[in-house]
């Protein structure tokens, strides 16, 4: 697998109009934070991922900070703070 599998949930999914995508890891992107910046730079609704927005993330189904590494084959998810229970 050379691509990332990216998932979006809840209000973020609605803001982006997209529940997920497959994406080749962009040049120069090796962390969750860099991936987030890359996606936010698409403009319009993707600004929901911009720095300062309250976004959380997971890599391979585990909560991760934005300094976490991402690599081809990873499943990455972006979402708002959780509200279960």
């Amino acid at each position, binding site marked *: 697998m050379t691509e990332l599998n990216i998932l979006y949930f*809840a209000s973020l999914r609605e803001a982006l109009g997209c529940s997920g995508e497959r994406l080749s890891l962009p040049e120069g992107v090796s962390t969750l934070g860099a991936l987030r910046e890359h996606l936010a730079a698409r403009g319009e609704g993707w600004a929901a991922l911009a720095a300062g927005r309250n976004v959380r993330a997971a890599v391979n*189904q585990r909560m991760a900070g934005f300094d976490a590494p991402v690599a081809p084959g990873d499943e990455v*998810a972006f979402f708002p703070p959780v509200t279960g*229970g």
Partner: protein
Amino acid sequence: MSVSVQEADFDVGAEITALSAGRAEVGAVASFVGLVRNAGHGNAVAAMTLEHYPGMTESALAEIVVEAQGRWPLQGVRVIHRYGRLLPGERIVFVGVASAHRGAAFAACEFIMDYLKTRAPFWKLEETPEGAHWVDARESDDAAASRWEESWEAIDQRR
């Protein structure tokens, strides 16, 4: 230890009974049931839809249970969390903990709920007369979860 993420309702009495059945060393079962309230942040709530992250949800809940088992001597833990559309008064979540003594059972049950609130990937969409909106995370939930970090450090310091 058993974790379920499901659309279906559950039988609270059967779950609590199962936690001590055949284990006569269990002296205490603490449990929690979370329900859909008819009022969220001042608005009447007609229904609530719980979205989740299939796969991660189960492993996040299992990880929380394992952490609880590392902190307290537990003889049984059961977590059930529903997803999908639920009406006011309907059950959302069940946490049940069996232990020899009540202190461990209460602490572990509350710990699991606090961590679940901040670490398990669920999101609530409320339907109100003014329309549907996503429920915001509450700072009080972060505060409730961080209590346990403090006490964990306090335990470490006493070692």
